């Protein structure tokens, strides 16, 4: 202690004893109660916290950006600097929070006034409270991999921002996802217009370098040589040895733009540390800047920060020890506190405010320029867009463009010109044109996709003229948001499109948007519970039963029911931590968006840093959808859709088979009655969007006859309309059981039929997102801004907790205008439903077209459809067995996979002789479906290629022949034999397998030359014949389907003896009849709120749909969840459209019967054995796994 403390106070009395001490204490107490007026207020000093992290410093920062901003404002700070570790991912949120703060504060004050019953007008003081002059500066905390102390960098200008993002991009692209590897040398290359605050320590952790960094041009970066020899020659590459050297060097590089951040920790050495910093500052001439290196807004976030730290270090709270901070001091301090802490160095606090005057940059300056790319020389984007559109219009309508189209176009052109969106439309057109050229199917959707421009350019296939979709409704001038066009591509070829975009715009100008992955309830429970030292067992139970679906209001009752003690300290802690993690979405890491491209005219990396994506050859930017919106960047969504791949396959097959050349053309007329007839029967297995159980049930009720009916069909079976109870009213009105009425406002509030204009198309029932929005605007008098907020709340996927803010406003607004409260409630309920799965009309229309196209193929070319669908697996709801079964029911002949006939894919072959003498349905030649080897579990595509290649020389004669000529390994041979694909070699499964097992796979050179038969004759093993039941069971085990029969047919005698009906008999049963039926479980679903469980079972005669109420389910959980073969007792319920459900009362697990089948129930011995040992379920598998919920 070298005289750091102070000497004895001369004012204090020298002789002291207890009495004096007490007197002194009393005097101080008095002084405390009555603060003397002459003591100068310490708070006079202004202060700006310039080193503040948000929770985008993943697993370090414990507060949201908005919390940091709010805290800084409420403490009355002059400025706040947001700097996360090597990222700027969180700064947009801070920026938005700062901008919206006055508005939010005002809203909160008004809310408080309303609750207190005061007039809804703010007083002067309150108005003043809503004002703040907090300066927000944004930057990054640079953490170096080479041991250089952390440096916080703030751009002084727009140019500085570009330098910073380029610097981060360099670091990001060097390392694997999420990391950023920077060295001191990198910093020296990007220093222009950056303000640097050097912190006296490094918080670097080990990082891993990327094996294959993305090819990226560094053209504007000074070369290494330049750094060594040029103006930076005084700075040799290795990092400076100590703080002083670093300051010296940087000070020479950026004179006047360098500070030393003096962060105090209250660890007992602050005075000593501050003195050292002062010395350094004096010797180097770098000013000191006071900061607390804040990790959270208020001390109460320390526990959360500790928990995050433990997650980061992979330890538990009890073991973490000094990994954690010793105290809760790393929050934002007030100016008074800082003045007190830095009383030995007040100039450091003043310097923090002086710093702000150097910053001339805000995120608002990120003027964004969309690429000018697809515009030829001499044209403006707008001219070119109009030219393209008009020529397309002439091509379509001839020289005279219809008046309505012309009007629409003029309106749209005006809007596009005003908002300067022409280039955006051209980009989308360019991408779509590329896809067309490559023969990649694509289709646009999204709000802007409803435009005539998009329709004429071929981006979308929905004619806005026919469907009365007004473009201006969605790209309104008030909504200063960029237009939204999503384009779906074939999922297997989307990568080509993405790479085209990268190529066309360059990797430095195109990037995929990020998606912020937030803590979801399960992950949060698991990780937090682990940190708090709860066992894996407990945390699994917690996440599955109690907090699996966190809804913000974890009832005490639910926790007690699950067997947890509410007073248990760990449970209390866990609840508190989870509450903080889940109340607002807490970011966990960055990931890439599914396909949202951000394109720029200038270098993208001068606007935002780029990252590696997990997938090769992709890079993404650090900002997510909301950030991009907030800054007015535009993005093009390049999405993948499996059904387009399937349709492409079907078109290709039809071309190969001479069934015509089809295109997903824009003017495809959707008027084929046969297609609608098929759909009305509910015959839609495999058809896009309408193949689910609920959709199939809805089809016969809705009886679609037009494309718009299909649009409604697609949109109606959705949680939104279902939870809003809109489905039944719509159905009743549609079939004329109920009069179509439009609720109207009180006469003094507006025209009687104001809702008719909105709801006419859907018979007075709001079914689409747009209608709900319009309803809010028209009926509840939402302003455009409010409606837009509502839309955002709806659009944010499962963003629980934001949408209900609008409830009262909407209901009140509607009731005030004379609507019935009940109707208003119902409307809002539906909007709430959209919150989880919104479905706008424009999307539904686009999807409806695909529904029609896929249904058309199924209807007219069932063999083609089944083949394309099978080759597109996994896709849709159904397993191959159901697809094949459905095809056969449509008269398609299906052949087994065979070593001499099949390739990898399923294929079509001319039908020689139809099974029942009937020719295949449809036009042209009759086709049969030949199963491909892809249906064989575990078989590889390359083996199939070898097989097909070898077959060119002639058909195979024996298994040995296959092995030698195709060069297949033993495993491939065994799989072929086991799949019973050797019948054309004259061997059934058992014989083939027996032979295959002894066939050596590796070609022996000696015999290969001689082409001689290598394997000698051997004594007959006299294997027992394989019974049909076993064949079927094995078919299912190996290929997941059997053409030989259905497992249930062999068990029929057993069940028939018990009085069990077949599925066909059940389907024919009278309404209300009590029956028993049994079958193999295909699907178990628990949709929506989970009131009911839907189970589909199948036997040799058909399927039965079972509905089980949740309360019955809880009682019979095990049989329901465990059964592969289920026996159900229940009551038949037949709707008037003929849809049959079995309302289950009792479920029995009869899976044991299946084991009997596998063991050979009917192979002559008659002996039934029950396996005593528990084998691995995989090996007793007879049936494919059903598709279940958990």
């Amino acid at each position: 202690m070298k005289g750091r403390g102070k000497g004895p106070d001369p004012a204090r009395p020298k002789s002291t004893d207890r009495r004096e001490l007490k007197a002194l204490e009393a005097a101080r107490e008095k002084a405390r109660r009555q603060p003397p007026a002459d003591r100068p207020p310490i708070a006079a000093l202004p202060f700006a916290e310039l080193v503040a992290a948000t929770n985008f410093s993943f697993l370090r920062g414990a507060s949201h950006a908005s919390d940091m901003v709010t805290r800084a404002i409420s403490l009355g700070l002059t400025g706040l600097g947001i700097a996360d570790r090597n990222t700027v991912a969180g700064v947009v949120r801070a920026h938005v929070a700062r901008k919206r703060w006055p508005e939010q504060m005002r809203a909160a004050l008004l809310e408080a006034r309303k609750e207190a019953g005061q007039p809804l007008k703010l007083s002067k003081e309150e108005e003043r409270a809503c004002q703040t002059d907090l300066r927000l500066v944004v930057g990054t905390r640079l953490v170096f991999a080479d041991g250089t102390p952390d440096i916080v960098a703030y751009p002084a200008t727009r140019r500085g921002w570009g330098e910073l993002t380029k610097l981060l991009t360099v670091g990001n692209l060097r390392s694997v996802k999420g990391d950023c590897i920077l060295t001191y040398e990198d910093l020296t290359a990007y220093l222009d217009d950056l303000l640097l605050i050097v912190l006296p320590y490094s918080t670097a952790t080990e990082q891993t370098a990327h094996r294959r960094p993305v090819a990226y041009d560094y053209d504007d970066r000074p070369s290494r040589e330049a750094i060594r020899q040029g103006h930076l020659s005084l700075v040799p590459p290795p990092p400076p040895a100590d703080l002083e050297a670093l300051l010296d060097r940087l000070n020479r590089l950026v004179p006047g733009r360098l500070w030393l951040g003096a962060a105090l920790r209250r660890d007992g050495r602050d005075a000593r540390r501050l003195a050292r910093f002062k010395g350094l500052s004096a010797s180097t001439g770098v000013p000191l800047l006071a900061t607390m290196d804040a990790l959270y807004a208020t001390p109460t976030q320390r526990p959360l920060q500790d928990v995050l730290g433990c997650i980061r270090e992979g330890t538990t709270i009890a073991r973490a020890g000094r990994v954690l901070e010793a105290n809760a001091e790393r929050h934002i301090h007030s100016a008074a506190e800082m003045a007190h802490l830095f009383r030995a160095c007040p100039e450091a606090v003043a310097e923090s405010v002086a710093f702000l005057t150097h910053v001339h940059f805000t995120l608002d300056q990120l003027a964004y320029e969309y690429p000018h790319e697809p515009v030829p020389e001499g044209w403006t984007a707008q001219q070119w867009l109009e030219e393209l559109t008009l020529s397309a219009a002439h091509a379509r309508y001839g020289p005279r463009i219809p008046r309505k189209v012309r009007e629409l176009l003029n309106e749209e052109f005006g809007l596009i010109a005003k908002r300067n969106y022409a280039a955006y439309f051209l980009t989308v057109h360019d991408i779509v044109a590329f896809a067309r050229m490559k023969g990649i199917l694509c289709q646009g959707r999204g709000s802007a996709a409803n435009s005539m421009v998009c329709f004429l350019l071929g981006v979308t296939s929905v004619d806005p003229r026919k469907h009365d979709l007004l473009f201006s409704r969605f790209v309104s001038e008030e909504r200063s948001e960029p237009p939204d066009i999503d384009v779906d591509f074939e999922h297997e070829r989307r990568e080509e499109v993405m790479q085209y975009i990268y190529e066309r715009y360059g990797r430095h100008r195109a990037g995929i948007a990020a998606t912020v992955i937030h803590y979801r309830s399960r992950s949060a429970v698991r990780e937090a519970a682990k940190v708090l030292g709860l066992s894996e067992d407990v945390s699994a139970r917690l996440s599955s039963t109690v907090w699996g679906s966190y809804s913000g209001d974890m009832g005490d009752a639910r926790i007690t029911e699950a067997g947890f003690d509410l007073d248990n300290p760990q449970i209390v802690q866990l609840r508190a931590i989870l509450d903080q993690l889940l109340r607002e979405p807490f970011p966990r890491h960055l990931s890439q968006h599914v396909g949202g491209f951000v394109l720029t005219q200038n270098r993208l990396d001068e606007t935002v840093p780029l990252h590696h994506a997990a997938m090769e050859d992709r890079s993404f930017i650090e900002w997510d959808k909301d950030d991009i919106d907030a800054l007015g960047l535009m993005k093009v969504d390049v999405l993948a859709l499996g059904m387009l791949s399937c349709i492409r396959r079907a078109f290709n097959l039809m071309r190969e088979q001479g069934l015509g050349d089809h295109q997903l053309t824009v003017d495809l007329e959707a008027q084929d009655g046969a297609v609608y007839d098929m759909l009305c029967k509910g015959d839609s297995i495999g058809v896009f969007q309408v193949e689910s159980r609920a959709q199939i049930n809805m089809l016969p009720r809705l009886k679609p006859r037009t494309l718009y009916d299909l649009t409604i069909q697609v949109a109606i079976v959705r949680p939104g309309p279902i939870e809003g109870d809109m489905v039944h009213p719509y159905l009743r009105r549609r079939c004329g059981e109920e009069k179509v009425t439009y609720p109207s406002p009180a006469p003094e509030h507006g025209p009687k039929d104001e809702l008719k204009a909105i709801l006419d198309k859907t018979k007075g029932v709001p079914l689409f997102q747009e209608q709900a929005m319009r309803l809010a605007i028209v009926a509840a008098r939402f302003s455009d801004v409010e409606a837009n907020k509502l839309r955002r709340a709806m659009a944010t996927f499962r963003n629980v907790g934001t949408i209900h803010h609008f409830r009262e406003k909407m209901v009140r607004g509607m009731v005030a205008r004379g609507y019935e409260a009940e109707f208003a409630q119902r409307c809002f309920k539906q909007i709430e439903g959209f919150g989880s799965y919104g479905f706008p009309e424009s999307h539904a229309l686009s999807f409806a077209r695909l529904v029609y196209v896929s249904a058309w193929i199924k209807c007219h070319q069932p063999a083609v459809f089944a083949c394309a669908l099978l080759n597109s697996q996994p896709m849709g709801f159904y397993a191959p067995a159901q697809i094949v079964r459905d095809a056969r029911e449509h008269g398609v002949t299906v052949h087994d996979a065979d070593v001499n006939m099949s390739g990898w894919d399923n294929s079509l072959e001319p039908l020689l002789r139809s099974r029942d003498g009937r020719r295949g349905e449809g036009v042209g030649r009759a086709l049969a479906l030949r199963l491909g080897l892809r249906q064989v579990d575990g078989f590889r595509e390359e083996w199939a290629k070898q097989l097909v290649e070898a077959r060119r020389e002639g058909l195979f004669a024996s298994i040995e022949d296959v092995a030698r000529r195709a060069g297949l390994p033993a495993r491939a041979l065994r799989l072929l034999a086991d799949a019973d694909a050797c019948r054309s070699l004259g061997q059934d499964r058992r014989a083939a397998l027996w032979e295959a097992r002894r066939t050596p796979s590796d070609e022996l050179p000696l015999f290969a030359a001689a082409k001689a038969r290598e394997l000698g004759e051997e004594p007959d093993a006299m294997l027992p014949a394989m019974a049909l039941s076993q064949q079927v069971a094995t078919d299912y085990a190996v290929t997941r389907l059997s053409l030989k029969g259905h497992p249930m047919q062999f068990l029929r005698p057993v069940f028939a003896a018990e009085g069990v009906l077949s599925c066909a008999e059940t389907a024919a049963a009278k309404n209300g009849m009590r029956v028993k039926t049994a079958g193999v479980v295909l699907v178990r679903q628990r949709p929506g709120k989970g009131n009911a469980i839907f189970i589909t079972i199948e036997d040799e005669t058909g399927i039965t749909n079972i509905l089980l109420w949740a309360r019955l389910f809880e009682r019979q959980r095990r049989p329901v969840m465990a059964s592969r073969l289920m026996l159900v007792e229940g009551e038949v319920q037949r709707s008037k459209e003929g849809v049959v459900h079995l309302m289950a009362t009792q479920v029995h697990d009869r899976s044991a019967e299946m084991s009997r089948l596998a063991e050979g129930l009917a192979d002559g011995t008659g002996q039934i054995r029950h396996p005593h040992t528990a084998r691995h379920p995989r090996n007793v598998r007879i049936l494919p796994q059903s598709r279940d919920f958990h």
Partner: protein
Amino acid sequence: MRLATLDADALALGLTPGMTLADARAREPDLRVFDADPHADQDWLERLCDGSARYTPVAALDSPFGLILDISGCAHLWGGEDALAREAADRLERHGMRVRHALAGTAEGAHALCRFPVGAAADEDAALRRLPAEALQLGEESAVALRRAGLRTVGDLAARPAAVLAARFGEEAVDALHALLGLGRRPLAPRRPRPAIRIERRFAEPMGSTAFALKTLTEMAAEAGERLGERGQGGRRFEVVFFRSDGLAFPLRVETSLPVRDAPAIMRLVQERIDALSDPLDPGFGFDMLRLTVPQAEPMAPTQLALEGGEARREESVAALVDRLSIRAGRARIQRLEPRDSHIPEQAQLALPAVESRPPASWPQRQETGDPPMRPLHLFDPPQPIEVVAQVPDGPPHRFRWRRALHEVTRYEGPERIAPEWWTAKDGRLEGKSVGEGTSAGLTRDYYRVEDARGRRYWIFRHGLYGTEAVHPGWFIHGLFA
């Protein structure tokens, strides 16, 4: 996560080993699950195997869940084979285990019959032939292939020519088949527990001299050291018993903190122990037997001998000192501090008996060179309350009264703020309640290193943050610097 094993109730519910935990929970939300601990299972099985020595000396492990006992020639002692089997099973079941057992002519046969019950059969051979083909344990792939071929039982296989089977399932399949049917024989690797080293010396005439007895003991220690060396072990505990011809016995016990097999070292400790006896070793009419046992031994790598004049390794010499002192003063009296990772000063180290604990790998180094120490040499346990005059709210102390003496603070450094460990709060709350109430996890402490007018340095702290945690924070002295 998958289920490893299940109890009978769970099996009855239709759950199977290998099923994923998520699947099982979907069926049985209330399933009780415990982490599998294969090491503990193995350990337990080994102990059971060792315990089986009561039935036969030839007992082998059949991991993971089985034991194989060769009871040839032992059964009559228990009244026949069945009686022996019943006795063994009953015995294990009394300890809460579930037992399945089978008797067969070969180990493989017994193994298979035990796991695949086939019911009553005419004779052993018939029973074996009725076993399912899986009993051969050829692996899943072969088992499936056999099922596909329609060969379901061992009998089916045995009826086919061996060459045909060997071509498809390998020689090992035929070997396994033959072993099961008793046609070939595989040796059993019995597990015998390694007995503790025990060395005895009997004397023809009682030994009247303690010194001579100790000399003999030295030889015995050397022999013990040699035998430990063969095992690659060193002793952690040595027991010596001096048997006197009149029937009295003097047992002595020494423990070491590191494994030892060096005879002089052992003898040094024994000597210490003898010297420390309150009642000296009295040969009386003479010792007629000495016994040295090593009940506790640990692996010990062979060490390079020090070259002549070379220094003994430091660690070893400290260990030897610790051993000697512990013997002299009692094992709990010599303690060693172990670092514990905590901010709370009094919890930053643990005192453990030195003989039991190893020297810590390293102590945290957190000081910058040249700075005075952050922590005092001596900590008071518990901290002692003092009266302090200090600035509010969080100013440094000006003077304090400790043990009735008033100390004027001339210099101070601080505060070092150490917050309580919130996770230890009994009520689980993360934050403090209102002022004065405090949290059950404790209060924040502000530590100051202070120097009084006479140059003595103290470590004192304010208990609780003024205004937020406590109305009148108390002060304590927690330690003394040099």
